[in-house]
């Protein structure tokens, strides 16, 4: 999967808050069309890392390179989906998807056309004129994903997008995400603390240590592509999940002790 130069390179990235280090010297790459997951215990700095890459949180040291060029505060080719629910309650599903294009000054027809394509892709047909409070949690996340995808980002950062969903919806949406990625060849950097999800979706999993967040290990997920959620029942899947958990267990315990104090 690693073809050519990486789209995103993170080098020696660190984040210091006034009284502690949140991210300590983190580095990794993401190549075109790749799906990379970052997994780590709660509070290890996953969101901070992602938002630093997107230029929303200033970095203390280190570099973020997009297609080999260092960027200071984000880049137009980066899209981000946040951990918290973030679709605008004052806009319909369709209007939410049009938002970015509207801000760029796209004509009404053009943005409507692109948003409708996105409705199709995301399987949101029939819900385009609903307001968020009339949508289920899973539908809302689809809208959030669509709102980012309409902008055609070269790399999409997703911060636990399915974190608030029930297990079944989560698995189904994961499968949808894989289908979409297959269709449009989207490059994705995905944050989660769900091991099954990381293995189900990724080409590679980056495992982070408990606070301060460092890269502890990187595991290649050599499951066949294209995948469906049926992959969960394979033996190889179980082995990979075990491998990731082995790496994570110690960190999770450490993090648990940190917070228990």
């Amino acid at each position, binding site marked *: 999967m690693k073809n050519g130069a990486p789209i995103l390179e993170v080098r020696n990235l660190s984040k210091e808050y006034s009284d502690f280090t949140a991210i300590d010297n983190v580095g990794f790459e993401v190549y075109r069309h790749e799906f990379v997951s970052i997994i780590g215990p709660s509070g290890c700095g996953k969101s901070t890392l992602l938002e630093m890459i*997107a230029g*929303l949180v200033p970095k203390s040291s280190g570099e973020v390179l997009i297609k080999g060029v260092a960027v200071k505060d*984000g880049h*137009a080719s980066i*899209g*981000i989906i*946040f951990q*918290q*629910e*973030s679709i*605008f*309650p*004052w*806009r319909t599903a369709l209007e939410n998807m049009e*938002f*970015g294009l*509207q*801000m760029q000054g796209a004509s009404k027809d053009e943005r409507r056309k692109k948003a409708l394509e996105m409705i199709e892709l995301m399987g949101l047909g029939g819900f385009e004129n609903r*307001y968020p409070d009339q949508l289920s949690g899973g539908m809302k996340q689809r809208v959030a994903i669509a709102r980012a995808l309409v*902008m055609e980002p070269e790399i999409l950062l997703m911060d636990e997008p399915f974190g608030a969903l029930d297990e079944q919806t989560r698995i189904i949406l994961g499968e949808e995400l894989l289908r979409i990625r297959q269709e449009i060849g989207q490059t994705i950097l995905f944050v989660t603390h769900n091991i099954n999800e990381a293995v189900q979706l990724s080409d590679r999993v980056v495992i982070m240590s408990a606070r301060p967040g460092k890269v502890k290990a990187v595991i290649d997920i050599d499951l066949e592509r294209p995948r469906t959620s049926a992959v969960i029942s394979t033996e190889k899947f179980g082995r990979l999940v075990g491998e990731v958990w082995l790496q994570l267990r110690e960190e999770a315990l450490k993090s648990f002790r940190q917070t228990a104090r």
Partner: protein
Amino acid sequence: MASRRGRETAARWIFIAALLAALEGVVRLDWVDRIFVTAPSLVAATAWEKILSGELPALFVTTLFSVGAAFLLAMVVGLPAGYALWRFPLFGRAYDELLSALFASPWILLYPIFLVIFGRGLGAIIAMGFLSGMIPIALNTHHGLRDVNPIYLKVGTGMRLKERQIVRHILFPAAAPMILSGLKLGVTYILISVIAVEFLVEIGGIGTLASKGYFWFNTEELYLGMAGAIVLSMIFIHLLGRAESRLFTS
């Protein structure tokens, strides 16, 4: 379920009708002194007379003019003030507390000062209404902007929008419900204080009627004045509630 709703509404109106009928009966049977209480039918007759003569419409128009003028002023000052409180958070905190304290105080009792300064006329009434409406408008605008979920703003920053775009397309729409409820609160308070001052000082619109009726022993006019003021307030509040729910269930 619709029929349950219907039954409740019916019960409500039957209760009100029964109350009015009882009043009518008590007066017609001469069980009470007509100086104190009068029959709804007589009040209605007086109302009809005063509508034909143009007196009642003129009173309503005067009240609505005062309310409208006070509301306009309160918006023109309150909305930018609320924005400024948000824009400069340090001052925002300080003045928010001052305004809240003023709002919690019995500001309606300031009206004699307004009378002294603006003279006995609509000026004093409008100034009083302005004061009572401006404070909730400014406070709600401030709170609405301040309490916008930061994640919405982050979406804008993540899309690398200009500050102006974020303010116009994210900040204000997100704060709109709170700002609108501030406007609603403002109008309600303006209406209350305008009618109260009209009654207390006997200048201006519909509030004066009850006062005049009382002092001239004109019982029908007294009750018409009270009913008019109360019905006007209720219609106002009803329309505001409707407007609000219309805006937010679109």
